[in-house]
């Protein structure tokens, strides 16, 4: 039997035999009660004991649930198709991780479902091919529609009503300067802030890890050029770059994601590169290379998984920074349509009435609730990140940066 690894064909090497030899049939004496724990299991055990981190996690989970059930979700058939096929691709590739060699069928499944997702995404640009929309999530937690001006249908409602005037049970957060229900707007606003932080950080860290991993592994000129590009991105104040990008691409969810990914990936590239420089000198890397593993596989299967700790910490602490940044753009009124229920954007009217000068009344309920919502989510996320930092025992502390970066 032969095993093919890269260009070298190894004769007389049977992986089954090696695997059998590596898994001892009998526990070595004296080691029976020492549980072998993976790095991640150990981290989770330590995380669970951290009270403030668990409080943070519960708050984040609660707000994420609210975000999902705030308003009904209806998706077109093609969107559902894309999500499903991406999920299948992801599931199959996770499955293939647990096998030494991915079978041809498994590989075909992964590439096939990814191709299907791509095909469906392209089909969206042809009207008529998107299919009817289906309501996948019918629950609505928000008592009123967040964009309806209540005074149009209900003569008892006005603009700028305080919670007491509007009735504490009907409108616990009062109404805004256009006469919309603040409570519904705060609930619906969780959609933006809760999701965009995770989406941006996921995309940015994937790009950054790939970039920094390659730069660190190959070194010399490749490293020099790639890291100078990282330096260029670092030279911009993040919010300023985000403003320019939104100014060019226009508003919208994925435009905002792009606006924060473009300045955001650089930190991950720099972090992982530093770690890769250390990890690549280790013996298991030499071993993998000696076995003829391809560079791609050495980088992404051996080096990166062993250098990922600081990236995980940075990512968890970065979610809050991104959320504040997005809310800051909303506050500046850039990248959002007027009246969008987004926490930062809901504060814009307050600023406008402040500038209007003397006699301006500040309606505390319009200022307090959206800001408190941002603060609560970001604080909870930072507690989680801090807990992850302690649990993973990162060698150096990574500090969150306030003020939207």
């Amino acid at each position, binding site marked *: 039997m032969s095993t093919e690894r890269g260009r070298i064909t190894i004769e007389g090497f049977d992986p089954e035999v090696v695997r059998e030899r590596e898994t001892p049939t009998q526990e070595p004496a004296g080691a029976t009660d020492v549980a072998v724990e993976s790095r991640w299991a150990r981290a989770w055990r330590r995380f669970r004991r951290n009270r403030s981190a668990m409080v943070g996690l519960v708050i984040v989970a609660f707000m994420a649930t609210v975000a999902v059930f705030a308003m009904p979700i209806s998706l077109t058939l093609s969107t559902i198709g894309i999500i499903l096929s991406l999920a299948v691709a992801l599931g199959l590739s996770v499955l293939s991780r647990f096998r030494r060699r991915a079978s041809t069928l498994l590989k075909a499944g992964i590439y096939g479902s990814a191709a299907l997702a791509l095909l469906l995404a392209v089909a969206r640009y042809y009207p008529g091919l998107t299919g009817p929309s289906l309501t996948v999530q019918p629950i609505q937690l928000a008592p009123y529609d967040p964009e309806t001006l209540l005074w149009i249908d209900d003569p008892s409602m006005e603009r700028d009503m305080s919670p007491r005037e509007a009735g504490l049970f009907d409108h616990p957060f009062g109404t805004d300067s256009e006469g919309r229900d603040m409570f519904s707007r705060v609930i619906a606003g969780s959609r933006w802030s809760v999701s965009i932080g995770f989406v941006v950080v996921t995309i940015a860290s994937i790009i950054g890890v790939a970039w920094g991993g390659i730069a660190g592994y190959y070194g010399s000129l490749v490293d020099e050029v790639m890291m100078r590009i990282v330096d*260029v991105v*670092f*030279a911009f*104040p993040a919010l*300023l770059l985000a403003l*320019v990008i939104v100014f060019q691409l226009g508003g919208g969810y994925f435009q905002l994601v792009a606006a924060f990914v473009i300045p955001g990936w650089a930190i991950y590239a720099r972090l992982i590169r530093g770690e890769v420089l250390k990890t690549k000198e280790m013996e298991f890397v030499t071993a993998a290379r000696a076995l003829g593993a391809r560079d791609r596989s050495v980088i992404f299967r051996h080096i990166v998984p062993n250098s990922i700790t600081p990236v995980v910490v940075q990512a968890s602490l970065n979610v809050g920074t991104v959320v504040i940044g997005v809310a800051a753009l909303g506050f500046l009124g850039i990248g959002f349509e007027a009246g969008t229920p987004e926490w930062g954007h809901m504060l814009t009217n307050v600023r406008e009435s402040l500038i209007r000068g003397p006699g301006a009344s500040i309606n505390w309920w319009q200022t307090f609730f959206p800001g408190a919502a941002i*603060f609560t989510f970001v604080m909870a996320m930072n507690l989680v990140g*801090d807990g992850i930092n302690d649990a993973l025992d990162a060698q150096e502390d990574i500090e969150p940066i*306030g*003020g939207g970066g």
Partner: protein
Amino acid sequence: MSLRRFILYRILSFIPIMVGVSVLTFALIHLTPGDPVSLIASGNPDFSAADEARLRARYGLDEPVVQQYFTWMGNVLQGDFGIVYSTDRAVEDLIVRRLPETITLGLFGWVFALLIAIPTGIYAAVRKDQLGDDFSRIVALSGISLPNFWLGLMLLSIFAVTLGWWNVLPPNTKLYHPDMLYYLILPGITIGTASAATMMRIMRSAMAEEMNKEYVTTARAKGLPERTVILKHVLRNSLISVTTAAAFLTASIFSGAIVVEVIFSWPGLGLEFYDAILLREINVIMGITLFLSAVIILMNLLADIAYAFLDPRIRY
């Protein structure tokens, strides 16, 4: 690498990074459709196609993009950032006029941050893993999680609108008038809070790391009072990493300046940048972006050099 070679290398690396910054800035603005002339034309029905072409030729917008980049860069190197389309004034005059406002505000926020961060950081490190440390950790994380625009609005509505201690708009006095110190307090606190919290955490972990080192044990063993050990030995060594971290915060202070200047109507570069975005003044956008990036790169350069000077063990 000797210190001199390291400094030379870092100074020379300023050039390719600056080239990259200028290319990225220019590309972001020019590689998407729509230019200021088409914006003027769309707002003005009397504008004919011939007028449009004439205006484009006047501003050099009809040339190929690559050529436009080199023209722009050539002018920038001679200190000419182009003109503000709506007023026909030079962008560099605008930057020079607004810059002191932003520097004053940023410096105030920075000093505020350090004044808060260093003592509390020392306190937290000395009390590591005790109640005081936990408490200061929660306070610091709250400071980081506080959106600066929300903090600014709350400060304004409490101290300016309700209590009337300040005006909502800054007074029309000269920047260097002593009264301005009073008017800097609210925006300064707003811009400095997040940095203070970040710095405090950096200070704490730097101190905590130093405290584990052997020279501290030696100092204690030879009978030095704890005060001397902390303030003379540990503090000095941990300030090295704080210095560099403080320089790296320049970028986040500039980010903060946009929001804070808009809230407090502070007439600095951030407010000017925001107005330029709303009015699509591309020369102003590019000018301010390029200028602030250059400042950030310079600060990081200084931080690296200061690091090498302060810690003679570091050699590259």
